[in-house]
Protein backbone atom coordinates (compact mmCIF):
# COMPACT_ATOMS: atom_id res chain seq x y z
CA UNK A 1 0.00 0.00 0.00
CA UNK A 2 1.19 3.50 -0.89
CA UNK A 3 0.42 6.07 1.78
CA UNK A 4 0.02 9.76 0.97
CA UNK A 5 0.95 11.76 4.05
CA UNK A 6 -1.78 14.24 4.93
CA UNK A 7 -0.35 16.98 7.13
CA UNK A 8 -2.95 19.60 6.19
CA UNK A 9 -0.64 21.11 3.59
CA UNK A 10 -2.82 21.46 0.58
CA UNK A 11 -5.12 19.42 -1.51
CA UNK A 12 -4.21 15.78 -1.97
CA UNK A 13 -7.01 14.84 -4.35
CA UNK A 14 -5.01 15.24 -7.54
CA UNK A 15 -2.07 13.24 -6.14
CA UNK A 16 -4.40 10.44 -5.12
CA UNK A 17 -6.23 10.43 -8.47
CA UNK A 18 -2.98 10.37 -10.45
CA UNK A 19 -1.60 7.42 -8.47
CA UNK A 20 -4.89 5.59 -8.87
CA UNK A 21 -4.76 6.33 -12.61
CA UNK A 22 -1.51 4.36 -12.89
CA UNK A 23 -2.94 1.48 -10.90
CA UNK A 24 -1.61 2.23 -7.43
CA UNK A 25 -3.45 1.33 -4.23
CA UNK A 26 -3.49 4.48 -2.13
CA UNK A 27 -4.38 5.48 1.37
CA UNK A 28 -4.37 9.11 2.51
CA UNK A 29 -3.39 9.32 6.17
CA UNK A 30 -2.09 11.59 8.90
CA UNK A 31 -1.46 8.70 11.28
CA UNK A 32 2.24 8.04 12.08
CA UNK A 33 1.66 4.29 12.46
CA UNK A 34 0.03 4.08 9.04
CA UNK A 35 2.99 5.91 7.53
CA UNK A 36 5.35 3.54 9.34
CA UNK A 37 3.50 0.51 7.97
CA UNK A 38 3.38 1.75 4.35
CA UNK A 39 5.25 0.00 1.53
CA UNK A 40 5.97 3.36 -0.01
CA UNK A 41 5.24 6.92 0.96
CA UNK A 42 4.25 10.02 -1.01
CA UNK A 43 4.89 13.31 0.76
CA UNK A 44 3.12 16.12 -1.12
CA UNK A 45 2.58 19.67 0.02
CA UNK A 46 1.35 23.06 -1.09
CA UNK A 47 1.39 26.18 1.03
CA UNK A 48 3.70 27.71 3.57
CA UNK A 49 6.69 25.97 5.16
CA UNK A 50 6.09 27.25 8.68
CA UNK A 51 2.55 25.88 8.83
CA UNK A 52 3.68 22.64 7.29
CA UNK A 53 6.37 22.09 9.93
CA UNK A 54 3.98 23.01 12.74
CA UNK A 55 1.37 20.59 11.42
CA UNK A 56 3.91 17.78 11.14
CA UNK A 57 4.91 18.39 14.75
CA UNK A 58 1.32 18.57 16.03
CA UNK A 59 0.38 15.38 14.22
CA UNK A 60 3.45 13.59 15.59
CA UNK A 61 4.56 12.78 12.04
CA UNK A 62 8.15 14.01 12.08
CA UNK A 63 9.80 10.76 13.17
CA UNK A 64 7.59 8.65 10.90
CA UNK A 65 8.42 10.81 7.88
CA UNK A 66 12.16 10.77 8.71
CA UNK A 67 12.14 6.99 9.08
CA UNK A 68 10.13 6.49 5.87
CA UNK A 69 12.50 8.78 3.93
CA UNK A 70 15.40 6.62 5.13
CA UNK A 71 13.98 3.17 4.75
CA UNK A 72 11.44 2.85 1.93
CA UNK A 73 10.54 4.23 -1.50
CA UNK A 74 9.62 7.84 -0.76
CA UNK A 75 8.46 10.60 -3.09
CA UNK A 76 8.39 14.24 -1.95
CA UNK A 77 6.48 16.72 -4.11
CA UNK A 78 6.78 20.54 -4.17
CA UNK A 79 6.70 21.80 -0.55
CA UNK A 80 7.11 18.13 0.37
CA UNK A 81 10.50 18.29 -1.35
CA UNK A 82 11.53 21.65 0.12
CA UNK A 83 10.95 20.75 3.75
CA UNK A 84 13.14 17.65 3.43
CA UNK A 85 16.09 20.07 3.43
CA UNK A 86 17.83 21.86 6.31
CA UNK A 87 16.25 25.28 6.18
CA UNK A 88 14.06 27.59 4.10
CA UNK A 89 14.01 31.36 3.76
CA UNK A 90 10.21 31.26 3.73
CA UNK A 91 8.24 32.89 6.59
CA UNK A 92 11.34 34.71 7.82
CA UNK A 93 13.37 31.50 8.04
CA UNK A 94 12.17 28.06 9.15
CA UNK A 95 14.18 25.02 10.21
CA UNK A 96 12.98 22.03 8.25
CA UNK A 97 13.43 18.26 8.49
CA UNK A 98 17.13 18.18 7.58
CA UNK A 99 16.81 14.79 5.89
CA UNK A 100 18.78 16.19 2.95
CA UNK A 101 21.49 18.84 3.23
CA UNK A 102 20.75 22.21 1.63
CA UNK A 103 18.88 25.48 1.62
CA UNK A 104 15.59 26.66 0.17
CA UNK A 105 15.56 30.20 -1.22
CA UNK A 106 13.10 32.65 -2.74
CA UNK A 107 13.33 33.51 -6.42
CA UNK A 108 14.88 36.95 -6.91
CA UNK A 109 12.76 39.70 -8.43
CA UNK A 110 13.73 39.75 -12.09
CA UNK A 111 11.95 41.87 -14.67
CA UNK A 112 9.67 39.72 -16.80
CA UNK A 113 9.78 36.73 -14.43
CA UNK A 114 6.60 36.50 -12.40
CA UNK A 115 6.76 34.88 -8.97
CA UNK A 116 5.41 32.29 -8.31
CA UNK A 117 6.70 30.42 -11.29
CA UNK A 118 3.50 28.89 -12.70
CA UNK A 119 3.57 26.60 -15.70
CA UNK A 120 5.53 23.99 -17.60
CA UNK A 121 9.31 24.07 -17.48
CA UNK A 122 11.93 21.59 -18.64
CA UNK A 123 14.14 19.44 -16.45
CA UNK A 124 17.72 18.59 -17.39
CA UNK A 125 18.41 15.13 -16.03
CA UNK A 126 21.98 14.35 -14.99
CA UNK A 127 22.15 10.63 -15.54
CA UNK A 128 19.77 7.79 -16.26
CA UNK A 129 18.01 6.71 -13.09
CA UNK A 130 14.63 5.48 -14.19
CA UNK A 131 12.44 8.43 -13.23
CA UNK A 132 13.40 11.27 -15.54
CA UNK A 133 14.46 11.64 -19.12
CA UNK A 134 16.53 14.64 -20.08
CA UNK A 135 14.53 17.61 -21.35
CA UNK A 136 11.07 16.51 -20.24
CA UNK A 137 8.65 19.24 -19.22
CA UNK A 138 6.67 19.24 -15.99
CA UNK A 139 4.18 21.54 -14.28
CA UNK A 140 5.61 23.86 -11.59
CA UNK A 141 3.94 26.19 -9.08
CA UNK A 142 6.39 27.69 -6.57
CA UNK A 143 8.02 30.85 -5.23
CA UNK A 144 10.89 29.09 -3.42
CA UNK A 145 13.47 26.66 -4.79
CA UNK A 146 16.02 24.16 -3.51
CA UNK A 147 19.64 25.11 -4.22
CA UNK A 148 21.72 22.72 -6.29
CA UNK A 149 23.13 20.05 -3.96
CA UNK A 150 24.99 16.73 -4.16
CA UNK A 151 21.71 14.80 -4.57
CA UNK A 152 20.44 16.81 -7.54
CA UNK A 153 19.31 14.58 -10.41
CA UNK A 154 17.25 17.19 -12.29
CA UNK A 155 17.96 20.88 -12.86
CA UNK A 156 15.63 23.64 -14.01
CA UNK A 157 16.16 27.35 -14.68
CA UNK A 158 13.91 30.25 -13.83
CA UNK A 159 14.41 33.92 -12.97
CA UNK A 160 18.12 33.61 -13.66
CA UNK A 161 18.54 30.78 -11.15
CA UNK A 162 19.37 27.14 -11.84
CA UNK A 163 17.79 25.07 -9.08
CA UNK A 164 17.33 21.44 -8.06
CA UNK A 165 14.00 20.38 -9.59
CA UNK A 166 14.56 16.72 -8.69
CA UNK A 167 16.75 15.04 -6.08
CA UNK A 168 17.46 11.43 -5.28
CA UNK A 169 19.25 9.59 -2.50
CA UNK A 170 18.76 5.86 -2.53
CA UNK A 171 15.04 5.20 -2.42
CA UNK A 172 14.27 8.81 -1.55
CA UNK A 173 13.14 10.82 -4.54
CA UNK A 174 11.67 14.32 -4.56
CA UNK A 175 10.49 16.78 -7.19
CA UNK A 176 9.81 20.50 -7.13
CA UNK A 177 7.33 20.01 -9.96
CA UNK A 178 3.95 18.29 -9.75
CA UNK A 179 4.05 14.91 -11.52
CA UNK A 180 0.35 14.51 -10.71
CA UNK A 181 -0.41 17.56 -12.86
CA UNK A 182 2.12 16.89 -15.62
CA UNK A 183 0.04 14.79 -17.96
CA UNK A 184 1.33 11.58 -19.49
CA UNK A 185 4.98 12.32 -18.60
CA UNK A 186 4.05 12.94 -14.97
CA UNK A 187 2.05 9.72 -14.80
CA UNK A 188 5.04 7.83 -16.23
CA UNK A 189 7.17 9.17 -13.37
CA UNK A 190 4.58 8.08 -10.80
CA UNK A 191 4.37 4.65 -12.41
CA UNK A 192 8.17 4.34 -12.22
CA UNK A 193 8.01 5.28 -8.53
CA UNK A 194 5.33 2.67 -7.83
CA UNK A 195 7.42 0.07 -9.64
CA UNK A 196 10.65 0.68 -7.73
CA UNK A 197 11.26 -2.39 -5.63
CA UNK A 198 11.44 -1.70 -1.93
CA UNK A 199 14.96 -2.65 -0.88
CA UNK A 200 16.79 -2.89 2.41
CA UNK A 201 17.92 0.43 3.78
CA UNK A 202 21.61 -0.55 3.65
CA UNK A 203 21.38 0.12 -0.08
CA UNK A 204 21.96 3.78 0.60
CA UNK A 205 25.49 4.42 1.91
CA UNK A 206 24.75 8.01 2.95
CA UNK A 207 21.91 7.13 5.31
Amino acid at each position, binding site marked *: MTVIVDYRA*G*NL*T*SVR*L*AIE*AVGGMVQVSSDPDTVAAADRVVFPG*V*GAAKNAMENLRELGLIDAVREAARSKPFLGICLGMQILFDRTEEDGGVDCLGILPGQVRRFP*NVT*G*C*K*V*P*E*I*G*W*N*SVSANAPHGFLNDG*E*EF*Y*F*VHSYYVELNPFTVGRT*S*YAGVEFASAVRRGQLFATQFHP*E*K*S*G*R*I*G*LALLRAFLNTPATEKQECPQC
Partner: protein
Amino acid sequence: MLTKRIIPCLDVRNGRVTKGVKFKNNIDLGDPVEMAVEYSDGGADELVFYDITASAEQRPIDIGMVESVAKAVHIPFAVGGGISSVADMERVILAGAEKISVNSLAVRNPAIIADGAREFGRQCVVLGMDPVKSDTPGCPSGYEVTTRGYRELTGMDAVEWAKRAVDLGAGEIVVNSVDADGTRQGFELTITRLIADAVPVPVVASGGAGVPKHLIDAFNLARADAAIVAGMVHSKEWTIAQIKDEMHRAGIPTRLHW
Protein backbone atom coordinates in the same frame (compact mmCIF):
# COMPACT_ATOMS: atom_id res chain seq x y z
CA MET B 1 12.69 27.59 -19.80
CA LEU B 2 9.19 28.35 -18.56
CA THR B 3 6.82 27.94 -21.50
CA LYS B 4 3.83 30.05 -22.48
CA ARG B 5 0.59 28.23 -21.78
CA ILE B 6 -2.38 27.58 -24.09
CA ILE B 7 -5.61 27.10 -22.17
CA PRO B 8 -8.75 25.86 -23.95
CA CYS B 9 -11.86 27.29 -22.33
CA LEU B 10 -14.93 25.12 -21.96
CA ASP B 11 -18.18 26.97 -21.26
CA VAL B 12 -20.52 24.49 -19.64
CA ARG B 13 -24.27 24.94 -19.78
CA ASN B 14 -26.50 22.26 -18.28
CA GLY B 15 -23.69 19.71 -18.33
CA ARG B 16 -22.70 20.32 -21.98
CA VAL B 17 -19.93 22.42 -23.47
CA THR B 18 -21.38 25.27 -25.52
CA LYS B 19 -20.00 28.18 -27.44
CA GLY B 20 -21.75 31.46 -28.08
CA VAL B 21 -20.75 34.96 -29.03
CA LYS B 22 -21.11 37.32 -26.08
CA PHE B 23 -23.31 34.78 -24.30
CA LYS B 24 -25.74 34.50 -27.23
CA ASN B 25 -26.41 31.88 -29.92
CA ASN B 26 -25.08 28.97 -27.90
CA ILE B 27 -24.13 25.87 -29.87
CA ASP B 28 -23.70 22.42 -28.30
CA LEU B 29 -20.08 21.27 -28.65
CA GLY B 30 -19.91 18.09 -26.61
CA ASP B 31 -19.32 16.41 -23.29
CA PRO B 32 -16.99 18.30 -20.92
CA VAL B 33 -15.02 15.25 -19.80
CA GLU B 34 -14.53 13.89 -23.32
CA MET B 35 -13.41 17.30 -24.52
CA ALA B 36 -11.05 17.69 -21.55
CA VAL B 37 -9.37 14.38 -22.43
CA GLU B 38 -9.15 15.32 -26.09
CA TYR B 39 -7.50 18.66 -25.34
CA SER B 40 -5.18 17.21 -22.69
CA ASP B 41 -4.05 14.47 -25.10
CA GLY B 42 -3.72 17.11 -27.80
CA GLY B 43 -1.22 19.21 -25.88
CA ALA B 44 -3.26 21.76 -23.92
CA ASP B 45 -1.18 23.07 -21.03
CA GLU B 46 -4.14 23.70 -18.78
CA LEU B 47 -7.95 23.87 -19.02
CA VAL B 48 -10.59 26.22 -17.73
CA PHE B 49 -14.26 25.40 -17.19
CA TYR B 50 -16.93 28.01 -16.66
CA ASP B 51 -20.28 26.79 -15.42
CA ILE B 52 -21.96 29.64 -17.25
CA THR B 53 -25.51 29.05 -16.11
CA ALA B 54 -24.80 28.33 -12.43
CA SER B 55 -24.82 31.97 -11.27
CA ALA B 56 -27.88 32.94 -13.31
CA GLU B 57 -29.79 29.94 -11.98
CA GLN B 58 -28.46 30.60 -8.47
CA ARG B 59 -27.28 27.05 -8.04
CA PRO B 60 -23.88 25.77 -6.94
CA ILE B 61 -21.34 24.58 -9.45
CA ASP B 62 -21.64 21.04 -10.80
CA ILE B 63 -19.19 19.20 -8.51
CA GLY B 64 -19.83 15.86 -10.21
CA MET B 65 -18.43 17.30 -13.41
CA VAL B 66 -15.33 18.62 -11.61
CA GLU B 67 -14.72 15.18 -10.09
CA SER B 68 -15.11 13.44 -13.43
CA VAL B 69 -12.68 15.82 -15.12
CA ALA B 70 -10.14 15.39 -12.31
CA LYS B 71 -10.28 11.61 -12.71
CA ALA B 72 -9.89 11.79 -16.46
CA VAL B 73 -7.16 14.38 -16.99
CA HIS B 74 -3.94 14.99 -15.09
CA ILE B 75 -3.09 18.52 -16.11
CA PRO B 76 -4.05 21.64 -14.15
CA PHE B 77 -7.54 23.00 -14.59
CA ALA B 78 -9.46 25.96 -13.24
CA VAL B 79 -13.16 26.19 -12.55
CA GLY B 80 -15.35 29.26 -12.42
CA GLY B 81 -19.02 30.12 -12.18
CA GLY B 82 -21.45 29.35 -9.41
CA ILE B 83 -18.94 29.96 -6.63
CA SER B 84 -20.28 32.16 -3.86
CA SER B 85 -18.29 31.28 -0.75
CA VAL B 86 -15.06 29.79 0.59
CA ALA B 87 -17.03 26.60 1.24
CA ASP B 88 -17.87 26.43 -2.49
CA MET B 89 -14.19 26.97 -3.31
CA GLU B 90 -13.23 24.16 -0.99
CA ARG B 91 -15.65 21.75 -2.66
CA VAL B 92 -14.16 22.54 -6.07
CA ILE B 93 -10.57 22.19 -4.84
CA LEU B 94 -11.27 18.94 -3.00
CA ALA B 95 -12.93 17.60 -6.14
CA GLY B 96 -9.52 17.92 -7.82
CA ALA B 97 -9.43 21.34 -9.51
CA GLU B 98 -6.14 23.21 -9.33
CA LYS B 99 -7.59 26.71 -9.35
CA ILE B 100 -10.82 28.60 -8.77
CA SER B 101 -11.71 31.56 -10.88
CA VAL B 102 -13.78 34.34 -9.32
CA ASN B 103 -15.15 37.27 -11.25
CA SER B 104 -18.43 39.05 -10.38
CA LEU B 105 -18.32 37.58 -6.89
CA ALA B 106 -14.96 39.23 -6.19
CA VAL B 107 -16.30 42.61 -7.30
CA ARG B 108 -19.23 42.29 -4.90
CA ASN B 109 -17.13 40.81 -2.13
CA PRO B 110 -13.37 41.37 -2.56
CA ALA B 111 -12.68 39.63 0.77
CA ILE B 112 -13.36 36.30 -0.95
CA ILE B 113 -9.98 36.66 -2.70
CA ALA B 114 -8.14 37.09 0.60
CA ASP B 115 -10.14 34.32 2.27
CA GLY B 116 -9.50 31.91 -0.61
CA ALA B 117 -5.79 32.74 -0.73
CA ARG B 118 -5.42 32.24 3.01
CA GLU B 119 -7.28 28.95 2.91
CA PHE B 120 -5.82 27.34 -0.23
CA GLY B 121 -2.82 29.46 -1.26
CA ARG B 122 -2.57 32.24 -3.79
CA GLN B 123 -1.86 29.89 -6.64
CA CYS B 124 -5.42 28.56 -6.30
CA VAL B 125 -7.17 31.91 -6.64
CA VAL B 126 -7.59 33.34 -10.13
CA LEU B 127 -9.27 36.69 -10.67
CA GLY B 128 -11.22 36.75 -13.91
CA MET B 129 -12.27 40.14 -15.13
CA ASP B 130 -14.27 41.41 -18.07
CA PRO B 131 -13.01 44.91 -18.90
CA VAL B 132 -14.63 47.10 -21.51
CA LYS B 133 -13.31 50.29 -23.14
CA SER B 134 -14.65 53.24 -21.22
CA ASP B 135 -14.27 56.99 -20.86
CA THR B 136 -15.70 57.01 -17.35
CA PRO B 137 -13.71 59.58 -15.31
CA GLY B 138 -13.07 56.97 -12.58
CA CYS B 139 -11.23 54.74 -15.06
CA PRO B 140 -7.93 56.43 -15.98
CA SER B 141 -6.67 53.32 -17.81
CA GLY B 142 -9.55 53.70 -20.26
CA TYR B 143 -10.98 50.31 -19.29
CA GLU B 144 -13.83 49.62 -16.90
CA VAL B 145 -14.66 46.37 -15.15
CA THR B 146 -18.04 44.81 -16.00
CA THR B 147 -19.83 42.02 -14.17
CA ARG B 148 -22.54 39.45 -14.61
CA GLY B 149 -21.56 38.50 -18.14
CA TYR B 150 -20.98 42.10 -19.23
CA ARG B 151 -24.45 43.15 -18.14
CA GLU B 152 -23.34 45.62 -15.47
CA LEU B 153 -20.76 48.39 -15.43
CA THR B 154 -19.00 48.82 -12.10
CA GLY B 155 -17.25 52.19 -12.41
CA MET B 156 -14.02 50.40 -11.40
CA ASP B 157 -10.79 50.92 -13.31
CA ALA B 158 -9.56 47.59 -14.72
CA VAL B 159 -5.86 48.13 -13.92
CA GLU B 160 -6.57 49.37 -10.39
CA TRP B 161 -8.83 46.39 -9.77
CA ALA B 162 -6.13 43.97 -10.98
CA LYS B 163 -3.57 45.52 -8.62
CA ARG B 164 -5.97 45.46 -5.70
CA ALA B 165 -6.90 41.84 -6.36
CA VAL B 166 -3.22 40.84 -6.32
CA ASP B 167 -2.73 42.75 -3.05
CA LEU B 168 -5.65 40.79 -1.64
CA GLY B 169 -4.10 37.48 -2.75
CA ALA B 170 -5.02 36.68 -6.36
CA GLY B 171 -2.31 34.46 -7.88
CA GLU B 172 -3.22 35.01 -11.50
CA ILE B 173 -5.36 37.42 -13.55
CA VAL B 174 -7.45 36.45 -16.56
CA VAL B 175 -8.15 39.50 -18.71
CA ASN B 176 -11.20 38.68 -20.81
CA SER B 177 -11.96 41.53 -23.16
CA VAL B 178 -15.65 42.18 -23.66
CA ASP B 179 -15.00 43.95 -26.93
CA ALA B 180 -12.91 41.13 -28.40
CA ASP B 181 -14.76 38.12 -26.96
CA GLY B 182 -16.13 35.78 -29.59
CA THR B 183 -14.91 37.89 -32.50
CA ARG B 184 -11.84 35.79 -33.36
CA GLN B 185 -10.20 39.07 -34.43
CA GLY B 186 -7.40 38.91 -31.86
CA PHE B 187 -6.97 39.63 -28.16
CA GLU B 188 -7.38 43.13 -26.77
CA LEU B 189 -3.65 43.72 -26.46
CA THR B 190 -3.74 47.15 -24.85
CA ILE B 191 -5.53 46.28 -21.61
CA THR B 192 -3.75 42.91 -21.41
CA ARG B 193 -0.37 44.66 -21.59
CA LEU B 194 -1.41 47.38 -19.12
CA ILE B 195 -2.31 44.72 -16.57
CA ALA B 196 0.66 42.45 -17.33
CA ASP B 197 2.99 45.39 -16.65
CA ALA B 198 1.12 46.42 -13.51
CA VAL B 199 1.02 43.16 -11.54
CA PRO B 200 3.73 40.71 -10.38
CA VAL B 201 1.61 37.59 -11.03
CA PRO B 202 0.94 35.76 -14.32
CA VAL B 203 -1.60 37.32 -16.68
CA VAL B 204 -3.79 35.29 -19.03
CA ALA B 205 -5.09 36.85 -22.26
CA SER B 206 -8.67 35.89 -23.04
CA GLY B 207 -11.26 36.66 -25.69
CA GLY B 208 -10.73 37.06 -29.40
CA ALA B 209 -8.26 34.31 -30.39
CA GLY B 210 -8.85 33.28 -34.01
CA VAL B 211 -5.46 32.36 -35.48
CA PRO B 212 -2.06 31.44 -33.94
CA LYS B 213 -0.71 34.93 -34.71
CA HIS B 214 -3.16 36.29 -32.13
CA LEU B 215 -1.53 34.20 -29.40
CA ILE B 216 1.95 35.15 -30.58
CA ASP B 217 0.93 38.82 -30.32
CA ALA B 218 -0.51 38.27 -26.83
CA PHE B 219 2.82 36.79 -25.69
CA ASN B 220 5.18 39.13 -27.53
CA LEU B 221 3.30 42.42 -27.54
CA ALA B 222 1.00 42.17 -24.51
CA ARG B 223 3.48 40.16 -22.36
CA ALA B 224 0.84 37.63 -21.40
CA ASP B 225 2.00 34.44 -19.66
CA ALA B 226 -0.83 32.32 -21.02
CA ALA B 227 -3.66 32.61 -23.52
CA ILE B 228 -7.16 31.21 -23.59
CA VAL B 229 -8.54 29.72 -26.79
CA ALA B 230 -12.10 28.64 -27.49
CA GLY B 231 -13.81 28.98 -30.87
CA MET B 232 -10.65 28.54 -32.93
CA VAL B 233 -10.07 25.06 -31.48
CA HIS B 234 -13.67 24.05 -30.75
CA SER B 235 -14.48 24.59 -34.42
CA LYS B 236 -11.56 22.25 -35.32
CA GLU B 237 -10.12 24.93 -37.55
CA TRP B 238 -6.94 24.73 -35.49
CA THR B 239 -5.42 22.09 -33.25
CA ILE B 240 -3.39 22.91 -30.16
CA ALA B 241 -0.42 21.25 -31.88
CA GLN B 242 -0.71 23.54 -34.90
CA ILE B 243 -0.90 26.62 -32.69
CA LYS B 244 2.13 25.46 -30.72
CA ASP B 245 4.05 24.78 -33.88
CA GLU B 246 3.49 28.38 -35.02
CA MET B 247 4.41 29.70 -31.58
CA HIS B 248 7.59 27.66 -31.57
CA ARG B 249 8.53 28.95 -35.03
CA ALA B 250 7.97 32.50 -33.79
CA GLY B 251 10.53 31.87 -31.07
CA ILE B 252 8.08 31.64 -28.16
CA PRO B 253 8.97 29.07 -25.47
CA THR B 254 6.42 26.33 -26.00
CA ARG B 255 5.83 22.87 -24.56
CA LEU B 256 6.15 20.59 -27.58
CA HIS B 257 6.14 17.09 -26.07
CA TRP B 258 3.28 15.62 -24.13
